[in-house]
């Protein structure tokens, strides 16, 4: 940054148009998301870590009664599923609401509309990264050896981010026109939770139900992550499946969002 040399009066006050120059806006909006979310809470940012830990603890207490014996290292199996599922739900749900929640601003100031859902996705990503802290605590506590394959988590995380953002863009655009989308999506998220092996063993769905898992993007991304966490390298088709789901969803999201965005300000 050349701030030191340039005289303040000579600095250009306004950003140039184009998405490359809007990083500052997105980073300010993300900061706002966090500050506003933990405003007036005593534990503040600590909730980022505490929340997934508590969820995991609760689900573990309940489901270990049923599935503990069937799954080796059930705590790690459970928390890896929950953390990725929460990442998906948070990204899609908050992105979906982003346009309507910023209606006041959107109808008054011209700001690139994509920044609203993208901001929500980035916030969810930061939350997800905090949630990795309890996840790695479980890794250490259950004496799983740290292996370089764990770095492959960054691949499944990126796929999940783009996959969820794509869906979030579609939902955000549709929610402007139909409020029903918000309620339907709440139901769809619940459906995803039961259709994905998060707290029950993957084998429970093989056989007659295998196709359900096969076309479930969440399953592929969570399965990929679990393989990497347990020291394995997922086979090439698994890489391809994750990347394909992410690319298709993200592409679809961009196309639909761009097609509808000019009508947002009039609908809000």
């Amino acid at each position: 940054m050349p701030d030191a040399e340039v005289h303040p009066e000579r600095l250009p006050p306004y950003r140039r148009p184009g998405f490359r120059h809007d990083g500052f806006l997105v980073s300010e909006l993300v900061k706002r998301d966090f500050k506003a979310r933990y405003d007036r809470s005593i534990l503040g940012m600590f909730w980022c870590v505490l929340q997934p830990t508590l969820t995991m603890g609760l689900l573990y207490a309940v489901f270990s009664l049923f599935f503990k014996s069937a799954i080796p290292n059930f705590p790690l199996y459970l928390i890896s599923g929950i953390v990725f599922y929460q990442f998906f739900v948070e990204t899609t749900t908050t992105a979906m609401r982003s346009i309507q929640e910023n209606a006041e601003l959107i109808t008054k100031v011209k700001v690139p509309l994509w920044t609203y859902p993208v901001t929500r996705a980035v916030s969810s990503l930061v939350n997800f990264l905090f949630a990795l802290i309890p996840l790695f605590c479980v890794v250490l506590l259950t004496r799983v050896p740290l292996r370089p394959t764990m770095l492959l988590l960054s691949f499944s995380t990126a796929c999940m981010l783009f996959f969820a953002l794509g869906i979030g863009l579609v939902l955000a655009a549709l929610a402007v026109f139909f409020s029903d989308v918000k309620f339907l999506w709440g139901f769809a998220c619940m459906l995803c939770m039961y259709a994905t092996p998060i707290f029950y063993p993957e084998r429970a769905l093989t056989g007659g139900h295998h196709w359900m898992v096969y076309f479930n993007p969440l399953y592929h991304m969570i399965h990929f992550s679990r393989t990497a966490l347990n020291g394995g390298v997922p086979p090439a088709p698994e890489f391809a499946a994750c990347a394909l789901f992410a690319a298709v969803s993200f592409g679809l999201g961009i196309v639909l969002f761009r097609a509808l965005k000019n009508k947002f300000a009039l609908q809000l």
Partner: protein
Amino acid sequence: MDTLIEASHASLRFSAPTDRKGSVKKWVLDALRGRVGHDRFLAVDDVSFRIGRGEAVGLVGRNGAGKSTLLKLVTGIVRPTSGTIAVRGQVAPLLALGNGLDPALTGRENVYLNGAILGYEKAWLRAHEADIVEFSELGDFIDAPVRTYSSGMTMRLAFSIATAASPEILILDEVLAVGDAAFQAKCRARIGEIIDDGATVFFVSHSLADIRKLCARAIWIEKGRVVLDGPVGDVCPVFEEFSKLPFIPIGDFLPGGRPDGTVPVVRFRNKRDGRHLLTAVREEMKNIVSKLSEWVCEGVVFRTFPEAAPGTVPLLRFLNLSNGVHALAVGEGEAAPYRERPDLWKYEKVVGHVFPVAAPGLVPVHRLARPDRPGIRIAVGDSERGVFLSTDPSLFVFGKPFYVQP
């Protein structure tokens, strides 16, 4: 002069708010009935204008006339459904004061957040943070959350951020009512500075006094259309009179002065019920009233004096409450019978001042009534009286004539 904002035949059509497709069910039902896309109206209707660099333009119009929508088109928040609006230059919209502020963040954090939303560079904001804080006069409060601010403090901060840079195009929507009187003066001074820096200003306000002070040109829009576009001194007085219209019969326009000292008395006909109304109005008002209200101008009947002059008496207008027709009385003597029946006749106003007796250069105005039909007809001069008489002389009853300048 180079043009910064150019609207050419811009229109914006959208569905009425009552017709929003709020749910899939409603949308499907509407689609089945073949009603999707109907119930639409033009919020901005074929608007064309050019605004050059450094011009300050005031936008006037009543509530719901389409001012805000037009500003949204200029800022690029919505696009016209037909026609174009071309804007060259950095637009700073001051129509969102306080909207980009987050109550949970401190004032200082909001400088960056709101600054980013308004399109500032990070480096520039860092260099000017101190100036912004100083202008806002918030002192130590700048590091307290905005939710603890009073509304005046919030607006002060928002104004300071929004006007920190001198943009090429400044859009002001009712933003001069910020904070206390001292801060308002400071705001006006700052806006004056921005204008002196060569900014083009687009200003919406209900305060015509502010518009007269800041702008040289005014555009009056009504029902999404441009009614008048010209120097502030021409547009504002006419708009001011018109804006008193909706609740009061149109006779309440202030008569404007004419070189010869007279004002026209114009006959209007109501489009809905055919009633006639005689009233004194400004010359330029006739067409505007015809265009925008249900009263159609039928022409100037005669000219009268706006104020009492030697030898003149007031011409008083009364409204018949039972059938809505008007009657004119010359002087208080003639008005007495109407005054005695306040249950039937309501006194409205002095339409003008006329001569009760013939004098050189004046012609008589004859009042004619048909007993079978309510309302009083006016004939200027004896030749016009002849026209009425030629239809059927036995039908008409004559009142006493009065004398006016033709």
